């Protein structure tokens, strides 16, 4: 069970002070503007601690809350978390339902937290796959926080990058059609005359709200992106950590940022080229 008092506790106390001192040293170097995370390892954590899977997911949600707060203190402006993939619907229906219940609980907690710290919350994904009550709560939260600019939290739910690309292509086609550019305006003599351009597709992406991530962290020791932000991660520092997600803490974040700073010049140069 997530509680508001846990969040208040993270923001205050001597641990917060030490953290801020540590982050002050980190801020001598370049700080990523956008961090994305694949929160892998909740079930392995539950198995290791001999607890049920849902308690493992609760611990994972708490770890995400910690990360959000650490990133706000560090000066990161965007955080994106891969909460639920379209592929995850293949899991046992009971597990999926429990994850949806946790999602609803998290939406309520984020509603409270967003007012406390002026956090803009965005849900990226095919939200039509969610139940009506979660959809409504998510939409209400997005609308109520749309004006906040200091910090943007994106929760990828019912998301895969391939679905995102397809959705963006569909929206681009509809837009061009609505603009009156039908088949008559399409020059078949040219080799795929580019009516729809990359910029058209990118503006319809679920993730258009944020710049491309600077760091993409995957916990759980895996080395793949699992259909998460593959379009947006061309010049992104990919970081794979052996630790499971609920055990991700401030020192893991510090390590990842230090690694990013070590490679910053190269990645920044590549970003300019691409």
């Amino acid at each position, binding site marked *: 069970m997530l509680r508001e008092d846990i969040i208040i506790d993270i923001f205050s106390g001597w641990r917060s002070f030490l953290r801020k001192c540590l982050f*002050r*040293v*980190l801020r*001598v*170097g370049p700080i990523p503007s956008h961090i994305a995370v694949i929160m892998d390892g909740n079930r392995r954590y539950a198995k290791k601690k001999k607890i049920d899977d849902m308690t493992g997911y609760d611990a994972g949600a708490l770890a995400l809350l910690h990360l959000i707060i650490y990133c706000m203190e560090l000066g990161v402006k965007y955080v994106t978390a891969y909460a639920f*993939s*379209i*592929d*995850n*619907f*293949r*899991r046992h229906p009971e597990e999926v339902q429990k994850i949806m219940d946790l999602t609803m609980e998290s939406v309520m907690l984020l509603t409270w937290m967003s007012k406390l710290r002026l956090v803009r919350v965005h849900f990226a994904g095919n939200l039509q796959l969610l139940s009506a009550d979660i959809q409504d709560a998510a939409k209400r939260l997005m609308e109520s926080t749309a004006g906040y600019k200091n910090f943007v939290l994106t929760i990828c739910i019912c998301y895969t*990058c*391939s679905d995102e*690309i*397809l959705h963006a*292509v*569909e929206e*681009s*086609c*509809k837009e*061009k*059609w609505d603009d009156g550019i*039908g*088949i008559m305006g*399409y020059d*078949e003599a040219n080799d*795929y*005359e*580019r*009516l*729809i351009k*990359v910029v*058209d*597709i990118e503006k319809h992406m679920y993730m258009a709200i944020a710049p491309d991530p600077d760091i993409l962290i995957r916990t759980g020791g*895996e*080395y*793949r*992106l*699992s*259909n998460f932000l*593959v*379009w947006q*991660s*061309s*010049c*992104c*520092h*990919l*970081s*794979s950590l052996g630790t499971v997600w609920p055990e991700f803490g401030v020192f893991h974040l510090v390590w990842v940022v*230090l*690694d990013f700073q*070590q*490679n910053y010049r*190269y*990645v920044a140069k*590549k970003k300019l*080229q*691409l």
Partner: protein
Amino acid sequence: MDFSNESRVLHRCSAHVRDIGNLLLRSLWHLVHFIISICNFTLDIANVLESYLISSGLLGRYKSLHIAKLRYLAIVIESEGAYQTLKIIELLQWLEAVGVKHVCLYDNEGILKKSKDFILENLDGAILFQVLSYWQPSIYAMLDAHENNVLLDQQHMTLEFVSFSDGKEAVAKAANVLFMKYSKSGVTDQNQKEKIFTESQMTEALKTVGSGGPEPDLLLVYGPARCHLGFPAWRIKYTEIVHMGLLKSMNYGSLIKAIYKFTMVRQNYGK
């Protein structure tokens, strides 16, 4: 007057304190990064030693690789490395010796595409992988029907050369192909919320525009950082991405280790 002198002195003192504080912070930051560089150097030495042991066959578990699991390998090479054609040929020869038959070479600037003739000439029997359009007899139909048999029977190594233009720009081109279908089919009148295109339609459209190669099982990155540098996104959704370091420091043992680790991976695909 005394008061303004005092405030000036105070201001100067606080500026000095601030400068000293900043100097201390910068020193701490450089010290931390120096320690990390030492740790990385130590790890690199350990990796070199391990690679030597793997290459000389002293580590038993790396002797037999289940290479059949690695059906398609992609290699991302950063721009400086892409000019080292002889090194790339050596890497491909290692892969051929190990039994890897299908390799996709990627660099974002397309330097490898310009060197492809030289690479193919200097690699015995290697052939260029052609992405055939959906209306032609396609290697994909063969792969769908007899996938493993076709790959195992392959006498020669196939090489595919890919660059940044085969990524996002290819998706835009494919989008135009789909737009043609959309315009012709009359789906514009349907419920706007319904899905119009499927993933397989996008895959076919990408093949139509010449950028529809298979999804690699494993992607090796030769460069300073673990970064795929714009490898076509549609193809690396579930690909294992491993950082191998700089191309100039490549070694056989690390390659074997990366392939071995890949063969040990088990994916749930979200389940």
